[in-house]
């Protein structure tokens, strides 16, 4: 667990969020907007229109030098040699004991420059972890404190942002990015990525540009009904897609294979703990992260216990919520592999009652 931060850091746009009436909460050492008008309305804005998340708390590391790719390859599970300039990859940092240090995005800026985007709560841990493997003197820069990140998400994101740049946004493939002029500023990185399943872009820029870029986006978004969206809806949106949240669904004790992240665990190269993970893949995992929906009335929550029909405890809920889009209670959790088949009946213990649920495929929400 992270220590409770004694001193909260401010993101560049904190004053804007407070002015908009956001509910601000301490998160990973920052005071962050968790909601504005309400999670359900914000959630719907992103699914149907366009919303803007300030996720400037995220960490950005630059790795630079002839051995940068070598370092990325050694610490991450996905195969970063497959990246070309302008492409992004979802990956994780496996630890040496079968778990995950963090999940992250790797951006290939050029063949000797990579940007790693990590979870705010793991920033220091990740930095130290990567440094430990940096035996070939790759230059590392932590640019998090001077970098702002807005996620403009939803089906109307491209039409709202296009007037602000000459970069052709509609032609950008998912998990690609470009650097260029945006809202009058040079060197803005626009990435066709997100954590919502609603489509859209993540825009990285220097803090000093933050107010002007925020205002420009909201000005252009007026007609599309653009709204600010907080971390609360970010969580319900990602959970409807079955996307893992570090600290909930994945952590130092869960393997990427157990978490269903086999697709980012490539044994085409050696990386931290790759031999043990390969063996685990060959032998098959004992527990699996599954999605489930409630049949009985009740909402699953992180840490609730999972039982089988015989009343034996078989696992733990890692994430759960009432899905705003589906109007159903949904969750994810680890169960023994025998219980991971779609349709399997499981029971979630909610306030001392075992309530029926069934294993379903993720994503829960299909657009």
């Amino acid at each position, binding site marked *: 667990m992270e220590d409770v931060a004694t001193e909260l850091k401010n993101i560049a746009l904190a004053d804007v969020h407070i002015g908009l009436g956001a*509910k601000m909460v301490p998160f990973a050492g920052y005071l962050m907007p*968790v*909601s504005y008008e*309400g*999670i*359900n*309305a914000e959630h719907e804005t992103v699914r149907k229109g366009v919303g803007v998340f300030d996720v400037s708390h995220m960490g950005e590391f630059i790795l630079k030098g002839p051995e940068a790719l070598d370092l990325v390859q050694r610490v991450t599970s996905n195969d970063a040699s497959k990246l070309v300039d302008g492409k992004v990859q979802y990956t994780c940092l496996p630890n040496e004991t079968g778990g995950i240090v963090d999940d992250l995005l790797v951006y290939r800026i050029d063949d000797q420059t990579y940007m790693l985007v990590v979870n705010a709560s793991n920033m220091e841990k990740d930095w130290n972890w990567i440094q430990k493997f940096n035996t070939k003197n790759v230059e590392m820069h932590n640019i998090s404190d001077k970098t702002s990140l807005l996620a403009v998400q939803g089906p109307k994101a491209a039409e709202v942002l296009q007037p602000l740049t000459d970069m052709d946004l509609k032609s950008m493939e998912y998990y690609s990015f470009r650097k260029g002029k945006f809202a009058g500023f040079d060197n803005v990185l626009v990435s066709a990525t997100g954590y919502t399943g609603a489509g859209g872009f993540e825009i990285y820029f220097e803090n000093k540009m933050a107010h002007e870029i925020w205002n420009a986006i909201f000005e252009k978004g007026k007609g599309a009904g653009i709204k600010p969206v907080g971390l*609360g809806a970010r*969580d*319900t949106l990602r959970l409807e897609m079955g996307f893992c949240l570090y600290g909930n669904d994945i952590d130092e004790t869960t393997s990427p294979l157990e978490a269903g992240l086999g697709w980012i665990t490539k044994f085409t190269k050696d990386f931290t703990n790759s031999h043990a993970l390969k063996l685990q893949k060959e032998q098959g995992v004992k527990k699996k992260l599954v999605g489930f929906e409630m049949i009985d*009335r*009740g*909402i699953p*929550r992180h840490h609730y216990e999972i039982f089988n029909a015989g009343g034996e405890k078989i696992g733990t809920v890692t994430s759960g*919520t*009432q899905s*705003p889009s589906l109007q159903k*209670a949904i969750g994810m959790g680890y169960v023994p592999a025998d219980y991971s088949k779609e349709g399997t009946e499981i029971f979630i213990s909610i*306030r001392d009652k075992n309530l029926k649920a069934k294993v379903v495929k993720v994503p829960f929400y299909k657009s």
Partner: protein
Amino acid sequence: MNFPDHLLYTKDHEWIKVEGNEATIGITDFAQSELGDIVYVDIETEGESLDAEAVFGTVEAVKTVSDLFMPVAGKVLAVNKNLVTNPAAVNKDPYGEGWMIRIQLANVADTANLVSASDYRKMTGVSA
């Protein structure tokens, strides 16, 4: 934010409307606003006699679960069944459609421990 003068309040953010030896109970405008979108109200104590500050149910917002506490001791006479299908009524109309339970007071004098609207407003720090 609205804290009607004819109601009494608790530090746990319930309101109570006393009528003779019966009372209606819900959560305050401040509570619903802090919780955000309420998606589930779970009250299964109908018919039970509960002590003051005992848990009479649970209210769940999208992200949080909160217990509901008895402002005073009493017997739960009725539960607002409409909240099963329309929990958002607690957000929209916390003192009306969003009421939660109706109780018979164990002792009418217990209400002396409750807080007035103006004192409750001070507790929440919400300006008039």
